[in-house]
């Protein structure tokens, strides 16, 4: 077993750090070095800079904390306060140098990695998605909101908002010009002595104060809540205003009863109950449109492997994902290495030009290249079929097998420059004496390459191959821009095709057309992807340790 040791890339020697003054030098033991006016840790400038910067940070932090306090986000407030306190403690205390270095990185890690991962993990255990978008309270109020139907053929009223003491009243003018007043407690009553404006709208009533628009807006929450019963019979519905100047007669199509937690259809009398799946349903399983988010445990993971529309394609997609990523890494590496070796000759003319040309595909964004290639590969109008193949009608992107090959070819075209760069760097760092010594011993060029150069090269390149595998495993851009995952499988009713890899499948599940958005299932699939990639990377990294023996 080789014992693990710190590995350095052979390309760069470790930079010798500048000589630093005693780090934990106490202010008492001032080392006197009058030669160089270096900035001393306890110099006035340094201290001032530190105070100013930390002050700025704290000022901003206090502002953020105040905003959080005002928006009543207590959890975030508590966490942010702790973070701010921790930062100040780290940078104001003596010693504890490692923490001073590590704090920014750890914070980054927590915010941009851990938090995101934990949140996706949490989503995987809920039914978050279309129709389950928020809390139960939100769903109930949304259902109530949309259940308000205007009473057919009811008149449209002009309305003014009045107050008396602390109560709000609405003063209505019906189309015939009759004025009536009412509030939530007081059904509609006639108000014959109402004063009218030039348009014939009743605006004032003795004993009441009329609100101006500004005042209406300022207390809009209360005014929107006013529901004036049209008569003593609740079946007649209520008058409401949405804009403070017009009112209509509404009647709810569904009534919510908080005690029994049921909605009742006012016409048919059907009852809708909480069905335990985040929706209200009646006895026949008919659900109301709006549901809410609930925790569903392992359901999403079970669905990933049992849902008939997913189960069939999922296995094929996983296999193709592996094929795609392994083949991509292998082909790009072989091609990049071949070109790097070929162009790594001292006496080659125009090396710079070749290299620049070689790196070009790498400099195009994959998004753009994907689109361009999909145009080039169009069966009838594409440049490849029309110009190169003399009008052949080959379905480069429409035939399942050819589409897979095309995706790989384009991905190799996009990826080989990276490998070319990496291998060129690694080759140039190999000492030339090795080459010479091997030649002296009479080894052929191929033998030198296979037995000496390649093993040495792999030491530094292997980790990059693993990361390249992980990258290609989730290479969304190429697939999405080039084929969109198509051509579609015939045996599933989901929009999944033969060039879909796991990540594009997840994207389609999460935001896709066809089945509505399903964040819960998508997160579960994302976790499955993570497990696969993490396992493979861990095993591969263990394997690469063996390569170090050649050193």
């Amino acid at each position, binding site marked *: 077993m080789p014992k693990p040791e710190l590995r350095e890339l052979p390309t760069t020697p470790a930079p010798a750090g500048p000589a630093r003054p005693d780090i934990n030098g106490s202010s008492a033991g001032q080392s006197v070095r009058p030669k160089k006016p270096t900035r001393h840790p306890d110099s006035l400038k*340094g201290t001032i*800079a530190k105070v100013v910067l930390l002050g700025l940070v704290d000022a901003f932090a206090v502002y953020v904390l105040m905003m959080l306090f005002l928006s009543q986000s207590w959890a975030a407030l508590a966490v942010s306060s702790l973070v701010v306190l921790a930062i100040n403690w780290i940078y104001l205390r003596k010693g504890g140098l490692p923490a001073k270095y590590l704090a920014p990185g750890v914070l980054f890690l927590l915010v941009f990695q851990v938090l995101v991962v934990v949140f996706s993990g949490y989503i995987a255990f809920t039914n978050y998605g279309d129709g389950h978008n928020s809390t139960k309270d939100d769903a109930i109020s949304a259902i109530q909101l*949309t259940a308000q139907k205007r009473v057919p053929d009811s008149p449209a009223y002009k309305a003014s908002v009045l107050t008396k003491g602390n109560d709000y009243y609405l003063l209505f003018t019906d189309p015939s010009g009759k004025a009536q007043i009412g509030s939530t407690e007081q059904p509609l009553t006639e108000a014959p002595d109402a004063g009218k404006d030039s348009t014939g709208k009743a605006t004032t009533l003795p004993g009441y104060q009329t609100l101006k628009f500004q005042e209406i*807006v300022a207390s809009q929450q209360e005014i929107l809540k006013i529901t004036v019963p049209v008569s003593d019979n609740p079946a007649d519905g209520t008058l409401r205003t949405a804009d403070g100047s*017009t009112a209509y007669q509404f009647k709810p199509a569904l009534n919510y009863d908080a005690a029994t937690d049921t909605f009742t259809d006012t016409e048919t009398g059907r009852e809708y109950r909480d069905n335990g799946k985040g929706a209200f349903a009646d006895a026949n399983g008919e659900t109301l449109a709006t549901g809410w988010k609930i925790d569903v445990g392992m359901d999403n993971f079970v669905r990933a492997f049992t849902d008939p529309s997913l189960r069939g394609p999922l296995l094929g997609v996983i296999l193709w994902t592996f094929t795609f990523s392994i083949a991509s890494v292998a082909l790009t590496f072989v091609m990049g290495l071949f070109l790097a070796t070929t162009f790594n000759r001292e006496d080659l003319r125009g090396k710079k030009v070749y290299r620049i040309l070689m790196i070009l595909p790498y400099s195009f964004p994959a998004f753009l290249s994907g689109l361009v290639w999909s145009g080039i590969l169009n069966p009838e109008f594409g440049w490849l079929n029309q110009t190169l193949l003399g009008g052949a009608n080959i379905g480069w992107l429409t035939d399942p097998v050819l589409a897979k090959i095309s995706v790989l070819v384009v991905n190799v075209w996009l990826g080989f420059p990276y490998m070319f760069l990496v291998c060129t760097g690694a080759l140039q760092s190999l000492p030339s004496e090795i080459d010479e010594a091997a030649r002296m011993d009479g080894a052929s060029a191929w033998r030198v390459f296979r037995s000496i150069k390649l093993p040495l090269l792999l030491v530094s390149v292997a980790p990059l191959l693993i990361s390249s595998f992980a990258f290609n495993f989730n290479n969304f851009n190429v697939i999405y821009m080039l084929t969109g995952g198509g051509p579609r499988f015939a045996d599933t009713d989901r929009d999944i095709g033969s060039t879909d890899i796991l990540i594009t499948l997840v994207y389609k599940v999460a935001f896709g057309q066809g089945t509505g958005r399903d964040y819960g299932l998508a997160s579960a699939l994302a976790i499955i992807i993570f497990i696969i990639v993490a396992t493979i990377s861990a095993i591969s990294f263990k394997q690469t340790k063996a390569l170090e023996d050649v050193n």
Partner: protein
Amino acid sequence: MKVHNTLATQTTRRVFATGAISVAAALALSACGGSASTAPASAEAKPDLKAAGAGVITMWVDAERSPALKDITEKFKSDAGIEVKLVVKDFAAVRDDFITQVPTGQGPDLIVGPHDWIGKFVQNGVIAPIELGDKAGQFQDSSIKAMTYNGAVYGVPYAIENIALLRNTSIVENKAATFDEVVANGKKAVAEGKATFPFLVGMDPKQADPYHLYPLQASMGSQVFGKNADGGYDAKQLLIGDAAGVEFARKLAAWGDAGEKIINSNITGDIAKEKFLAGESPYFLTGPWNVPDVQKKGIKFAVDELPTTGSQPAQPFIGVNGFFISAKSANALATNEFVTNYLTSESAQDSMYAAGGRPPALKASFTKAASDPVVEAFGKIGSTGVPMPAVPEMSAVWADWGATELAIIKGQGDPAEAWTKMADSIKSKIGG
């Protein structure tokens, strides 16, 4: 105050970085905290607008439409003292962001978009109905119908969009009523060497284009959904798989790659446009979005009614753009005032037309805009159209519909069988 210092050289950079991070951390955490807190911050009643959280209406709008709303928002500000803040968003992201953000209480009060979003919005409980009262009569019926969902109006329409048949008049002089005549004219033009393609319609390489082909399908009597009592689409009555639909599938195969090649699956929208602009085809089935380029190119063209393929009128799908109010707007009253009394005004609809060039939904504005013959022609065709279904089940329809049409056009398998299978697949998804 003397602060003990350790690493002067690094301090500045480090503190700076830490500052940035703590800010980011605080912000990120606050965003999370916001989504976790469910209690909406209820505005206390105070006479001061700003303190009440009112005084500013937030509206998400895409870059193209933003300038058109400047005047009307300024007018509203001077009349009512309430600012409408226009937040420019990428159009592609508006729908999903709205659904995601409304429950957190961080969403906008108001957005602009096409009517077929309504179903998803209602399903997710993020949109409030709008009562237009008598004002509904001032709009074109088709636009109000499109904005009506489950018997309530959910948006204020401002523009109607639909496709038509563009004809290059220098290749084919006369209008044709039926699709057969169109095909015959096109073939004649090809035979005479005036054109390369008898007919053009853009096909997505993965999804074909059910939207563009729908008039040909509707004319044969095939529809997607039946209607319920209040005239809205009823997702429980899926009609797409009926005999008329199967008949259309057969026709489609005959027009497709393996048949007459009238409809070519390799001609994408971009290619179709390019070929029409190059004068290589007499016909182009497309919407008003391609007209400006055709005009710029100087092609003499006419906007024809959609050709019939059967006994029914060739109804296009119409898409109606409008304004929607969030269900959790903390500023609902002011927003309603702005939407129902300002955005319905003639001047607002006029300026939206000036920006977008689509036939206005308000009758008075349309009458003015119809002085442009192209707008008039598109508007006239639109008045015969049917609203694109807004029910959330429609998304299940689109995906299968497109993939099946593509397979049929390519001549893969038996069209009737494929069509019936598609209908079954859609049914199982909707029923599920």
